[in-house]
């Protein structure tokens, strides 16, 4: 090794500059996220746009276009956040802090509902509770003669229930993680000080997990507000509109400017609420990580309540995971909704066209569209997972290495911005941006590329977060020691960072994959006949009243997601043998 002194030229200097990488990353993030938003703002300021503003905000139509939907949206957001905190908090407390039997089992069960897409739950609800108000096939209960009132079959209550059932596991995961960071030492110190159980819960445990509660509430709120599937399937048929279903309706009926205006308002509403709740906890976040590893936790004895609470928690998990899947499966095999569990037929899966059933539609696996959709969905999932994780890892790395600098902070803000943008609004922004050709960029509307770009932008926060988690396992020292050997950045990435990160990268990639494979709210606007995806097919079938087909496709999506999770599990164990040793 010789000491060679480098005297960089101008270009070389720029490339080597401390600011080069963050600058490039800021540009990429801006193109993905900021530019479409600016574009949608610009389009809403054209003469047509201003007219749309007028119609949406201040006209006889605005009550229907804006105020009622926004009221429903906020009600759903608040209701879902509250419901999720109660259910998720209860389960997290039970699993982490008590001696309930089967804690591991309950822990896994409580994380599963999030795996079931919200439209699966909504479809299952419809399959069971649909009444005769709208005609078409009634649900199971109505068909066997149990009267189902309108408020239970349609509208805000079923939407709320379905969304809580979908999102509570998110709150559970966050609260459980925070609770397990409350080490036994903390609790025992309080006991030594003479504090009683309730005092410990309210004085020590709750304050420590407050940031997680607020974040959990925030994320479930954001999820509910931007959710499209549940209100579209359960609310829209009876004119219970939310902002997302309104945006979809406007874009569908060609009132695209009104759609832009509503999308902007949805972004502002969601962002404002999330921003303020984030302010609420930002200063306190720090102590969530005080002792990162929850070494040993103190468990409270439940006494006689052990088994009743176990049954309650199990029931909750079963109702939100296994039962919807069983209902979907049974429905896809049942000729009529009254015989959900008898007279099963494989017609809807593999049957040839028969004018007697389903208006002559052939079974799914005889439908060339389905194979096409499976292929497109997989391709979309893999492409987005790869793109988002690659970008997420580089951005996370840049953020960590440039912590505290202006560009580092800016990048961090940009990367997490999509959390504040409901995906249907982001999709609207992408239509605004790429709907027509823009300079050298051709019109991308309806293309696979556009779906990939929008989905990558939408899921960037998750990818960056996974990237961060991955990198936090790789200490600065480990990278510096590699740097000292003289290995270049690419080599360090390939031989040190990546092998250490691979497990987290796979986990993050699979998260992104699953999220996009079962996404409906983003693809519902960007979908076209050249880019058929499974979730969109299911939604269309449901709209046409072919519940069996919709349910069958939903099961296909579920199976893809399950296989993906299983695959990553196997891969992880293969690759990182050194970790378990």
């Amino acid at each position, binding site marked *: *090794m*010789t*000491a*060679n*002194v*480098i*005297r960089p030229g101008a270009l070389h200097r720029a490339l080597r500059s401390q600011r080069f990488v963050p600058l490039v990353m800021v540009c990429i993030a801006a193109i993905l996220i900021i530019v479409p938003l600016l574009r949608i703002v610009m389009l809403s300021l054209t003469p047509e746009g201003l007219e749309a503003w007028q119609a949406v905000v201040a006209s006889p139509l605005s009550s229907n276009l804006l105020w009622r939907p926004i009221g429903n949206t906020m009600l759903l957001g608040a209701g879902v956040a509250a419901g999720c905190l109660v259910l998720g908090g209860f389960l997290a407390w039970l699993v982490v802090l008590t001696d309930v039997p089967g804690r591991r089992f309950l822990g896994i069960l409580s994380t599963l509902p999030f795996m079931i897409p919200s439209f699966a739950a909504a479809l299952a609800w419809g399959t069971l509770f649909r009444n005769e108000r709208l005609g078409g096939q009634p649900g199971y209960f109505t068909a066997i003669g149990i009267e189902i009132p309108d408020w239970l079959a349609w509208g805000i209550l079923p939407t709320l229930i379905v969304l809580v059932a979908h999102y509570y596991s998110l709150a559970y995961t966050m609260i459980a993680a925070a609770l397990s960071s409350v080490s036994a030492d903390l609790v025992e110190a309080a006991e030594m000080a003479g504090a009683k159980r309730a005092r410990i819960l309210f004085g020590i445990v709750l304050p420590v997990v407050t940031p997680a509660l607020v974040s959990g509430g925030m994320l479930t709120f954001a999820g509910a507000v931007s959710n499209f599937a549940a209100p579209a399937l359960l609310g829209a048929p009876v004119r219970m509109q939310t902002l997302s279903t309104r945006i979809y309706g406007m874009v569908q009926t060609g009132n695209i400017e009104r759609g832009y205006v509503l999308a902007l308002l949805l972004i502002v509403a969601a962002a404002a609420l999330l921003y303020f709740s984030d302010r609420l906890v930002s200063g306190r976040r720090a102590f969530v990580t005080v002792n990162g590893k929850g070494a040993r936790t103190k468990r409270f004895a439940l006494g006689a309540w052990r088994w009743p609470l176990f049954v309650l928690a199990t029931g909750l998990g079963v109702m939100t995971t296994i039962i919807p899947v069983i209902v979907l499966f049974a429905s896809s095999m049942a000729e009529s909704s009254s015989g959900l569990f008898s007279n099963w037929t494989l017609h809807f899966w593999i049957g040839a066209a028969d004018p007697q059933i389903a208006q002559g539609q052939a079974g799914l696996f005889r439908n060339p569209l389905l194979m096409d959709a499976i292929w497109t969905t997989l391709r979309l999932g893999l492409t987005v997972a790869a793109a988002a994780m690659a970008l997420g890892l580089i951005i996370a790395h840049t953020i960590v290495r440039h912590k505290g600098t202006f560009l580092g902070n800016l990048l961090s803000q940009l990367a997490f911005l999509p959390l504040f943008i409901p995906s249907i609004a982001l999709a609207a922004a992408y239509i605004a941006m790429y709907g027509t050709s823009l300079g050298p960029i051709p019109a991308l509307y309806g293309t696979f590329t556009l779906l990939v770009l929008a989905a990558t932008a939408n899921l960037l926060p998750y990818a960056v977060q996974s990237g961060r988690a991955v990198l936090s396992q790789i*200490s600065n*020292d*480990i990278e*510096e*020691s*590699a*740097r*000292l*050997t*003289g*290995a270049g950045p690419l*080599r360090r990435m390939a*031989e*040190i960072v990546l*092998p*250490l990160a691979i497990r987290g990268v796979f986990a993050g990639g699979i998260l992104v994959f699953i999220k996009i494979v079962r996404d409906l709210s983003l693809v519902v606007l960007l979908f076209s006949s050249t880019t058929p995806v499974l979730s969109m097919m299911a939604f269309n079938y449901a709209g046409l009243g072919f519940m069996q087909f919709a349910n069958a496709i939903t099961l296909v999506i579920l199976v893809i997601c399950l296989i993906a999770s299983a695959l990553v599990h196997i891969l992880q164990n293969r690759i*990182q043998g*050194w*970790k378990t*040793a």
Partner: protein
Amino acid sequence: MENGMNMHPPVTPAIELRHLTKRFGGHTAVDDVNVSVPSGSFLVLVGPSGCGKSTLLRMLAGLETPTEGEIAFAGKVVSSGKGGVVTNAAARDTGLVFQSYALWPHKTVEGNIDWPLKVAGWSKEDRAARIDEVLKFLDIEPLRQRYPAEISGGQQQRVAIARTIGPRPGILLLDEPLSNLDAKLRVDMRSELMRIHRATKATSVYVTHDQVEAMTMATHVAVLKDGRVEQFGPPDELLLKPQTTFVATFLGTPAGNLIPVTRQGTALAFRDVALADAALAPGQAEAQLLYRAQDITIGRREGRPGIRARYAESAPIAGQSMVTCLIGDLRVTAMVEGFFRAEPGAEVDLCFLRDPDAIFNAEGRKIPQ
């Protein structure tokens, strides 16, 4: 401060730091450091936590860029605040042993040693031979195929050193390498490190907060405080001729006693007890006298000054007792033959057996005699 400069022969120093300064925002971590050592030396940077010693080491490794000043290895400038000339970390012929060891957890012991050689472009045969050599040298051959998570802290330490000396760096940098080991292992590893230093002949820079490590291992010591070098020189010189009160009380076991005195007539006195001639501190109204523990004992002696104190604690050391007493808030350590015990709080007479070792002004600088 730079009285070490004249002690080495006029050859190009292996490491030379000139006016080296590092600022982070408004905070100055390293402040105008000037140090140079000849090839083969063992330089120890010692000081309390936050004194800037690790930042200094990271600048030597090329992981940080100086704000001002220069670093030269064997006469070649490798880092410079003004010119922006930086020889990158890999090309400066240094090896760094991290405090956390920073072993790559997904590589075996062998893989950890192999990789830097591979990056440096060594041939397969050379690498295999060198791996055998360093494994044997550090006595960790049986661990060859193990992963870092499977071996003990002391073994990880050896692997970290093996990995660093693998490519035969001309300069070996060590960042508190013993701080994660238990007391017994630390003493063993200390001699091991000195053996490695002798065998590799690499100029070494060693950062520690433990003055015992500094005193036992160094050929040169730089005592740092608040980013500045308080004193630089061979360990004996620092111990015998401390230039500041900080150095006097930081080094040595037990550390020296400082007695604050005021001028009273022709004498320097502590609580009306005349301890030294005022002529020793010309023009000073106040001064501080340095007494070694062995120059203070318990019990009155004819013709020597004494002070009443309260007994606090004692620890037996090699047949003597190291006795700590309190005069007000002032802690004073004395040596007594044999075992000495008393009731804590009991009154004892401290006797100053000799004249002070050194006299410092109120600001803590030595007053030349």
